[in-house]
């Protein structure tokens, strides 16, 4: 396949669509201003967690129902089958990374002890599932300020589980610096320390002294970064079930996903251009011919036949808000869908309409203008830039990113095949 594709953005959507296009034999360049947002999430695959009540069984059925009830939501256009295709593609890329089967949501404790629904936790988190009568001990590290076991244990213990019953919990502490004399470490330094088998042994020795038989051990999400065998080693040494809980960003489980996907993209020879901002698109006859990228020295043109735009939403700078409360898409000037009424509301717990601002799109992930017409024939969008979702609140971000990334790539591949078919006919 001679076609060239340019993908913008290195989050879940950008990386996954780039890898899928490259696997089909396309020449793919991925341009990104910085590292994508995967490590700012929990490192789980969230499909749909709240609608607004908690989704427990059948998240894919919930996707369909939610889409039917919310015509502006991405799940009104992306189907449950699209979500399944996206999730299965990721799972094939990263085998042995996740548990779950899209038949139900897991309910796992967060670092403040809330029970959060997610479709596919990492293998390292699976034992955190809360079932009645389970005995959990949450273990903190004195030198790690981002994980407070009393907080987690207290909140989990007071929560009645959806089917009734509670988890019995306890808190404990270890006094074990990540590296010599450092009294205040981040999860990152602990995770790097855990990559060292000798440190893991010291860690498990210390853990053994505070853990009681029959307890499932909840730890901060620091169980290894580069060494993917760290978790299995810790579990085997301790001889008791262990799970990790992601801490505040950047989360180590998210970093592992980001590292693995970035490595896959690079190894497949997606040309990753890191550190440069896309400045504008060069358009000719309804098609984008190239993107102008602000490389050092002078801007560079990246020409292509197909473009995937996945810059993320408001929180990633993919959408901007000025002091007059006007929203815009700053890179390509795409038309935005904006909900009616105030974009920011005073109620802290309410859905902030600002987060649902984004671009409208069709099932080929082409951007639509307010009249419903295609904006650029060869521009496809994916991920957080899509309009209509409050991803952080619904816990829908990964499902949307994966479904749209795979749809965008497949729509491109279908269009190339159609073109080749027409040529051969």
């Amino acid at each position: 396949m001679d076609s060239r594709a340019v993908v913008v953005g290195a989050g879940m959507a950008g990386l996954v669509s780039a890898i899928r296009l490259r696997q089909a034999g396309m020449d793919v360049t991925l341009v990104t201003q910085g590292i994508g947002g995967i490590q700012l999430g929990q490192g789980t695959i969230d499909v749909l967690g709240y609608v607004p009540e908690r989704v427990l069984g059948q998240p894919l059925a919930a996707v369909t129902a939610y889409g039917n009830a919310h015509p502006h939501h991405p799940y009104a256009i992306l189907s449950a089958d699209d979500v399944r295709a996206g999730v299965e593609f990721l799972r094939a890329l990263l085998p042995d990374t996740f548990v779950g089967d899209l038949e139900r949501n897991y309910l796992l404790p967060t670092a403040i002890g809330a029970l959060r629904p997610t479709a596919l936790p990492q293998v390292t988190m699976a034992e955190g599932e809360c079932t009645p009568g389970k005995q959990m001990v949450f273990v903190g590290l004195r030198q790690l300020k981002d994980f407070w076991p009393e907080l987690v244990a207290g909140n989990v213990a007071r929560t009645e589980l959806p089917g009734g019953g509670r988890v019995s919990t306890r808190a404990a502490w270890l006094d074990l610096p990540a590296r010599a004399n450092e009294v205040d470490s981040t999860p990152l330094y602990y995770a790097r320390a855990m990559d060292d088998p000798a440190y893991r042994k010291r860690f498990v020795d210390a853990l053994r002294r505070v853990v009681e038989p029959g307890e499932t051990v909840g730890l901060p999400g620091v169980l290894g970064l580069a060494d993917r065998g760290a978790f299995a080693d810790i579990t085997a040494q301790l001889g008791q079930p262990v799970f990790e809980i992601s801490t505040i960003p950047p989360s180590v489980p998210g970093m592992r996903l980001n590292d693995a996907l970035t490595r896959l993209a690079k190894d497949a020879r997606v040309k990753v251009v890191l550190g440069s901002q896309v400045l504008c698109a060069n358009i000719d006859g309804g098609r984008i011919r190239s993107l102008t990228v602000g490389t050092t020295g002078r801007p560079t043109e990246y020409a292509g036949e197909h473009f995937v735009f996945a810059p993320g939403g408001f929180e990633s700078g993919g959408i901007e808000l000025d002091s007059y409360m006007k929203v815009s898409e700053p890179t390509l000037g795409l038309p935005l869908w904006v909900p009616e009424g105030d974009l920011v509301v005073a109620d802290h717990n309410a859905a902030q309409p600002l987060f649902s601002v984004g671009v409208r799109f069709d099932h080929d992930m082409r951007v639509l203008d307010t009249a419903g017409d295609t904006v650029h024939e060869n521009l496809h969008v994916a991920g957080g830039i899509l309009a209509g979702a409050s991803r952080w609140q619904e816990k829908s971000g990964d499902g949307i990113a994966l479904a749209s990334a795979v749809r965008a790539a497949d729509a491109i591949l279908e269009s190339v095949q159609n073109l080749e078919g027409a040529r051969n006919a």
Partner: protein
Amino acid sequence: MPEPLEYPKAMLTRATLDACIKCTICETACPVSAVTPLFPGPKFVGPQAERFRDGESVDHSLDYCSSCGACTLACPQGVQIAELNSQARAVMKEDNMPLRDKLIGQTVLMGKVMTPFAPIANAALGNKLVRTVVEKTVGVHRDAPMPTARLHTFQGWMKKHQPPASPRTRGPVVFFSGCAGGYFEVETSIKTVEVLEHLGYEVIAPKQGCCGLAQQSNGLFDEATKSVLKLCDQLRSGGKDLTIVSASGSCAGMLKHEAHEIMGVDEEKLHDVGTRMREISEFLLELHAAGDLPTDFVRNDITVPYHAPCQLKSQGMGMPAITVMELIPGVKVIESGRACCGIAGTYGLKKEKYDIAQAVGQPLFDMVKEKNEGIAVCDTETCRWQIEKGSGVKTVHPIWLVHKAYGLS
């Protein structure tokens, strides 16, 4: 033009700080804080400390930043963290600049002094006693990688060199060797010129000095500004509007963006040279994209570990050398995936930072040792010396593979 340090002082209060959302992604990318608690990380000394600085440094751990730029590259919000830290350090060191840091930036002087006495200079640098004395008096670590002096300079070769008799079908380009390419890595410069000539270019190599990068990274903005502007004049003397090609990745970066972004040099001549500057792999890849690069390469069945230097990555153009090398049938590249080799210009030479630089480089050295089939590849000189010393594997510029593939060696 304002006094050189006025710019960083003024920048300290502005910069791109407002864009920082404290996501801390930069800290996950920092290779220095990963190996030593002496450096608390780019966000801590950058966007955090900056708010308290008001012209003066609040924290001298800033000096442990190696200026590799991995943080800026990683930042999803466009905060120029490394640039901010380089500016803050220049202000911090203004009144107490160590003699060592003044000397270490004198790369041309070093080349000029060493070349005529190359065997003696090399023997001296290989001598433990001499190096121990240098460490004690000057502060350059006794085991730090040092260049090997050559008896001939690139300019000396260029004067005697006869271009091929075939017609110069592609017109002239200017070649920028950089000091290391002029005095130490002469062979890389020669190979680059020979490849350009093989492609049909007329290569012009005007007399040229230092870009000032080593002075800049040591906070000597005044001297560095003078150096870079003088170099601009020299490169411009090669011809108006001509593409300038360099095999010295970090020096190309100084002219493309660092002199402007870090020191605030805003002269037309710098802009002119910066926009015309192409790193050699970038140049070859541009030709390839335009369908103008002959790929009648001789097969070379080899797997090469490749490290893209931090200062090359900072140019935001991806890794063109990988694509170029893999155009050669049989060549397979394994990218290091490491942010930095540790040396970061002159950082890893300094006695108090040598161990940190070695720890930063260790995973790279291990990877090179494990994956190499005789050579490793890296685009900049000091990084090649660092990798070669750390891994024991001969480390060459990507152009060496291209030169061979065209049957030129």
